[in-house]
């Protein structure tokens, strides 16, 4: 049985939807492109909202439940918008042994956010990573995309503080 893949209207005329469509089309709009397409959405928009999930579901002819199931299974995907700045603290074994908890505690103390949360003013999101693979430089963190290794709590706070007022 051939499935008819009709045209799907993007939710808005935002150009970024074209990029999402391109990813889906590159995989022949096959259901197996779900994760790849969600990656593109997150790259373009920063997170996956309901509109995006519905669009991807209709684009790939995947049931809504499955889209939501996949989006929530993989921790790389986030359904909430991130803050203007992000700090990812690595909680891999080497970093744990060398004091990643202290980094998290310091940020929590200064900004009042736990891993996975964003400050009320939308300035900073705190995330954790399972392992950045920079174990040789433990403890490590990523501040706005740049990896910082062998960092102590004061230095990390200073680094974050550069862009934000606490």
């Amino acid at each position, binding site marked *: 049985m051939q499935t008819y893949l009709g045209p799907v209207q993007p939710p808005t005329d935002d150009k970024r939807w074209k990029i999402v469509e391109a990813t889906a089309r590159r995989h022949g709009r*096959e*259901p*197996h*492109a*779900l*994760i*790849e397409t*969600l*990656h593109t959405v997150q790259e373009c928009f920063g997170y996956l909202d309901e509109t995006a999930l519905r669009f991807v579901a209709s684009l*790939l002819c*995947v049931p809504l439940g*499955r889209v939501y*199931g*996949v989006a929530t*299974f*993989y*921790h*790389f*995907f986030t359904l909430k918008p991130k803050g203007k700045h992000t700090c990812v603290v690595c*909680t*891999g*074994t*080497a970093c*744990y*042994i*060398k004091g990643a*908890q*202290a980094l998290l*505690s310091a940020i*929590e*103390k200064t900004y009042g956010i736990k891993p996975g949360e964003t400050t009320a003013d939308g300035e900073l999101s705190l995330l954790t*990573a*399972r*392992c*950045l*693979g*920079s*174990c*040789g*430089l*433990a403890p*490590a963190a990523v501040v706005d995309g*740049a*990896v*910082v*290794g062998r960092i102590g709590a004061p230095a990390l706070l200073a680094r974050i503080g550069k862009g934000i007022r606490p």
Partner: protein
Amino acid sequence: MTIEDLRTIAENERQAQKKFQHHVCVCIAAGCLSSGADQVRDAIKKEVAEAGMAGEVLVKGVGCMGLCSAGPLVSVETEDQLFANVTPEDASELVRSIDTGTADLKHCDTAVPFFERQQKIVLENSGKIDPERIEDYISNDGYRALVTAITEMTPPEIVALMVKSGLRGRGGAGYPTGLKWSTVSKTGEQAKYVICNADEGDPGAFMDRAVLESDPHRVLEGMAIAAYAVGAQNGFIYVRAEYPLAVKHLKTAIKQAERLGLLGNNICNSRFSFHVDIRLGAGAFVCGEETALIASIEGQRGAPRPRPPYPAQEGLWNCPTLINNVETFANVAPIVRNGAAWFAAIGTEKSKGTKVFALAGRVANTGLIEVPMGITLREIIHEIGGGIPDGKQYKAVQTGGPSGGCIPEQHLDSPVDYESLARIGSIMGSGGMIVMDETSCMVDVAKYFMEFCASESCGKCVPCRTGTRQMLAILEKITAGEATAADLALLEELCDLVKNTSLCGLGQSAPNPVVTTLKYFHDEYDRHISGEGCPICKEHAASSAEVSQ
């Protein structure tokens, strides 16, 4: 592409490189990159240009040199010099004294066990070649194995070669690679797939990342040889989204190989075609399990399914599928080039070849090492690793990540091979090796791994989903000093239950860190429940209590 064409490319590249008097290699793999190696490279390039030496000095970014703790690393190959902790400000000094070789920079002694005790097969090009240039790889014997295999060998011959080499899966379980290839090759003529498992999820492991970042063509070549041997037409590399540099290098490498006709249709004018595509993981440890990985490539939740049927018979889209890990594929080309006997001569009777380890934690030299199988843990930690820093005492080494165990002092002389590590309750695993000293509490470490397993459990089967959560709760109770002997008994009961009744490897091995710490560090558990308490755990509790105030 013929073997002659390949030789021409290699020769041209060598000639082009020879024109330069000095070769300066800057490590720009992830470790050094996070200490600013890209700025160092740019600064050196700028200095070279300003000194008008652009025709004499070749500056290239290369992959991992191993000693991540001393990064950024810069080597002047022609002078056999290695500099550590180089900053952009050091660039002028380095370039100025390049002719005399007397740079006043922090030298890194290469005549130490860290470098001398290693034996490199997988990492032979790592830190030497520019990972973004296929010509550099070809000039170092690259793709010779693939072209030879396709033009001079039959698929059964290659499978036989792999069987004879004794290579075993480097992903952790150590299943004989040749046997796996042979199973897939015997499934008859039909659509088949080759998958490279680059979902390196173990916390504390970065071997595969380094290989992909430093020498991506080696993995592609291994996959292509495997595809030819088992009769597959398509391949996927399933790589973590957390490794953007590895993804970038892989994408470049695939394009270059396709351009030269080393991937794609009718490779070497034969009937063999092989296409490789990249799939990004999305942060799920369980996707390192092969059936979960397949589900993920199919765009589904990464939940494992019962085996049999094994992926070799029914894998991706129900087609026979060969899944090997990055390091396994990286071993393939050297075996084809040098022969099975050469490979089988390295290592121990049952574990052949070398193994790459990511050495991290409380050890002087952290970084990436490759050692022959059979070396002892003591040699790795105290000689190559340079021992425990700050005058502290060794306590344990954790191998195999959340599925492995903690090995105490009394087993340090145990050789590193699949069977020996299993005998002392741990596993080889993918190669993470984390050293702990007296400042680590082993119950706390067990709790850390249990937290990991509980939150990485896919939730499909009951024992893993709720059993790990129950175990975590007990471990939290123990570290809080609120547990009794009855809790400890319950913990042991749960270890047995989860190990024997879980659906996949994640659940079946989740109790390992608890089991080994209970076995070797039972006194620490006793101290926690005796009311005496644990100073390390108390300190942890105090610092988090401070936050909540």
